[in-house]
């Protein structure tokens, strides 16, 4: 039997159904691969648990789960019952949740097998997966390079065949950017489509959970399992009916209008990426789509708005880590309550987290509220209006995911917020977006592009992305 870990999700489900291999077999192969990995993409591996679960599945009569026998991993900011969930932070390094996140229970119920919890930037704040209490994650394409972040471990794992698919979280690009850098498919669904119950909050109005996969079809398949209403998440979208996102995925792009921003071609964007966007536009045109020029809403202002709102919400969401009920508690002698808070939080949080909490606290303070937070909220609303306009003239926006094809480890981005300009507006405006690799540079780094559509129009994303993926697979490179 050839390397089972090279199979995509659809192939695994079919293979087990056809009795080509068992759940236990494929799970063991994955565990072997994990043990050989030097990428540091996993924080926790559920060795014994997953084998016994796989054996149970093999012995069970009911083998009808949509993801029956498919091994997956989950970013370590998503709660898993009885399994350490750390957010890659000293603050939660020993935290064990009492329940599964809603999305995890859906995957478990569908027959998927949890291999372990993946490494990330602490509390999802970062875009390199280097800011982790458990050390840096390395890019499987070239281990001297970063995976991107904050879902670096999840992206690396899928890319390095140490899981068949993974779950990440995306607040300003944290699924899409590492997916781009690791050459895998990363989907950020519409906010509220997947329940946030069990996702350890960073920025409540921006956070989204999403699948990282090797193919676009797999992405649609996983989304179909996860897009369910959850009464325990008040922001969870009321269910219409069960949506099968794989239906119609092969329809092609005839008649679709693809918006390409005029203003993406600026200094900071790698040549290869610019070329890729242009080529993809051509490919889609060949498929019968129409290219429409559009404008992104002032990217610099959008980046600032994102930074104000995400830090403001984070400062509130991370306030609960006060050493009283769970989490890291300083072992130094304290004189009073304030000292307990200060010592535990100063020591338990990393520098980036602390910076963002401080900034977030400031923009909500009496001094900063009018100047920053209130303005940011107003501009957010204007930004949403802008994209509503854009989607009245096009179905999908085609643009880069990230301005660079690679990030060396230890790279100091002079302007980290500007690097996010292609990914933050979707979180701010609750739009879905998918990133996929469409080629390689001469040094072997993936070149990725991103498609964005209007809220709840993931179907259009999948159609366009699938078309591109299949066209390029067909040999015609970019």
């Amino acid at each position, binding site marked *: 039997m050839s390397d089972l870990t090279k199979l995509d999700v659809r192939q695994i489900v079919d293979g087990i159904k056809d009795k080509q291999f068992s759940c236990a077999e494929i799970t063991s192969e994955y565990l072997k691969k994990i043990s050989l990995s030097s990428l540091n993409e996993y924080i926790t591996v559920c060795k014994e648990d997953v084998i016994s679960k796989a054996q149970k599945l093999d012995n069970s009569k009911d083998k009808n789960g949509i993801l029956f026998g498919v091994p997956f991993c989950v970013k370590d900011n998503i709660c898993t019952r009885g399994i350490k969930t750390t957010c890659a932070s000293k603050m939660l390094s020993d935290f064990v949740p009492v329940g599964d996140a809603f999305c995890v229970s859906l995957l478990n119920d569908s027959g998927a097998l949890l291999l372990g919890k993946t490494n990330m930037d602490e509390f999802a704040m970062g875009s390199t997966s280097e800011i982790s209490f458990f050390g840096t994650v390395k890019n499987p394409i070239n281990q001297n390079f970063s995976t991107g972040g904050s879902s670096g471990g999840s992206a690396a794992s899928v890319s390095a065949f140490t899981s068949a698919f993974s779950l990440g979280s995306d607040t300003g690009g944290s699924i899409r950017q590492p997916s781009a850098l690791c050459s895998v498919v990363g989907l950020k669904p519409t906010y509220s489509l997947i329940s946030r119950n069990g996702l350890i909050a960073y920025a409540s109005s921006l956070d989204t959970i999403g699948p990282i996969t090797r193919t676009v079809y797999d992405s649609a398949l996983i989304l179909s399992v996860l897009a369910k209403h959850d009464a325990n998440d008040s922001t969870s979208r009321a269910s219409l009916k069960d949506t099968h996102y794989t239906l119609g995925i092969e329809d092609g792009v005839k008649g679709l209008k693809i918006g390409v921003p005029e203003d993406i071609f600026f200094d900071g964007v790698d040549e290869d990426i610019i070329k890729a966007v242009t080529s993809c536009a051509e490919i889609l045109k060949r498929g019968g789509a129409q290219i429409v020029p559009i404008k992104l809403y002032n990217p610099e202002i959008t980046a600032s708005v994102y930074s104000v709102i995400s830090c403001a919400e984070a400062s509130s969401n991370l306030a609960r880590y006060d050493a009283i*009920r769970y989490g890291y508690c300083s072992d130094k002698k304290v004189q009073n309550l304030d000292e307990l808070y200060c010592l535990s939080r100063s020591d338990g949080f990393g520098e980036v987290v602390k910076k963002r909490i401080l900034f977030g606290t400031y923009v909500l303070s009496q001094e900063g509220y009018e100047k920053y937070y209130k303005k940011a909220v107003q501009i957010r609303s204007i930004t949403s209006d802008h994209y509503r306009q854009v989607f009245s003239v096009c179905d999908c926006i085609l643009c880069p995911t990230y301005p660079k094809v690679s990030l060396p480890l230890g790279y100091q981005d002079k302007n980290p917020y500007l690097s996010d300009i292609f990914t933050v507006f979707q979180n701010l405006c609750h739009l879905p977006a998918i990133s996929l690799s469409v080629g390689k540079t001469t040094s072997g780094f993936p070149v990725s592009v991103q498609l964005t559509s209007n809220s709840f129009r993931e179907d259009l994303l999948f159609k366009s992305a699938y078309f591109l993926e299949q066209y390029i697979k067909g040999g015609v490179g970019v």
Partner: protein
Amino acid sequence: MKIYKGYRAIIGLEVHAELCTDTKMFCRCKTSSDDEPNSNICPVCMAFPGSLPITNTKAVELAVTAGIALNCKINCYSRFDRKNYFYPDLPKAYQITQFYHPICENGFLDIKTQDNEIFRAGITRIHLEEDAGKLFHDISTNITQIDFNRSGVPLIEIVSEPCFNNSADVVEYLKKLRSVLIYSGVSKCRMNKGEFRCDVNISVQKQDDTTLGTRTEIKNLNSFKFIQNAIDAEFIRQVDLLCEGNDVIQQTLRFDTVLCKTFPMRSKENSADYRYFPEPDLKPVIVDVSYIQNCRRALPELADARFKRYTEKYLLSDTQADALTQNKEISDYFEQCLKYTQSTKTLCDLITGEVFRLIDDKFVIGISAENLACIASFCDNAVINASTAKRLVSELWNKNLSTEQYIKDNDLEQLNDEEVIRKIVICVLEQNSKAVGDFKNGKVNAKKTIVGAVMAKSKGKANPVIVQKLVDDFLSN
């Protein structure tokens, strides 16, 4: 006192009332406060990572009901906000409350002042929020323990206009407010269980001045008496300060009930910066016009309306009606009794006399409404006399017997046969010739002795009216 050294007090009140819901404001934990510490908790009210709040719809209904009962405008759109601060009894380090858009606004409550006038106390707003946990400080071990059973319990905060000028009005308002909340089913308002808490905001201004002075806030007042004393003490303290040429510092105070003085509560912080912003985890609270109408229709009869009915329809006196409506359980009991009898006055007397006397701390009424009603009816119909009626209440208390059966079994029926009574009177007169002599010599009380003897001889059963009449007849001859 209203004016002191030329100053008057400006007082505003913030009342927190725990809502009568089965479960907490944002999770499905029980709200029962009597259970073991930390037995009604879950990841949501303990603020575990990854947990999210879900709005208790019954709490919303009760808040709207309170708003209707307090003559407020009900906002069809209201929203939750986060109030951020650190304290061990606040698990999320923020309280979910309604800061910017409360559910009710601009209401009022009419109260009677000391001068017997009607004063319309304005209510600025009513909003929903969650309670914090409870801290227990043990001074001997220097350990503080936290019970999170109360964390997340639904509250409404009722904020009055700063419209009060004296402590007596404040107490009247609080009593009335409590009554409205209890009668409308919104809250049980048991002060000893912390279900009704009042914080006082007080400042002073010169009589002819309109600018507001610096105010202080007095917290942790758990009885009407202490509230009254605290207000009086703080009023004097502030005025004295200003008269000495000093400033009133804005601070939070507690009231020492022994020294009868206010003391600063926290050493630092004056107005904390709570960094309010809209709660992103919850959708806005939307109530439409028909919802509000339904709540209005479902609003139970309040104490005032019952008082009116008792005085106008049943012709009870103000004092009687007041005694019956003071406590909703008593009033409900009275209503129950009315299903079985129309002897409202006697019923009222029996309740305010006997039932009040026999009732225990837990307010358990040991005689069924049906039984008490029966006693009242029998009394009015002269089946039993008044003193028998009173006795019966105690004798049937906490016993599962029927009044009718008991009367028959114990031969308590009133003796109404005039002939039989006449024979007894004659007998008694013959046996009490001294008393008769005393009466004829002007000792009026001697008649009472004779009447008493007749009652005793009839084992208390003789119809007192007939006895009185016959004794009078005989003695005047």
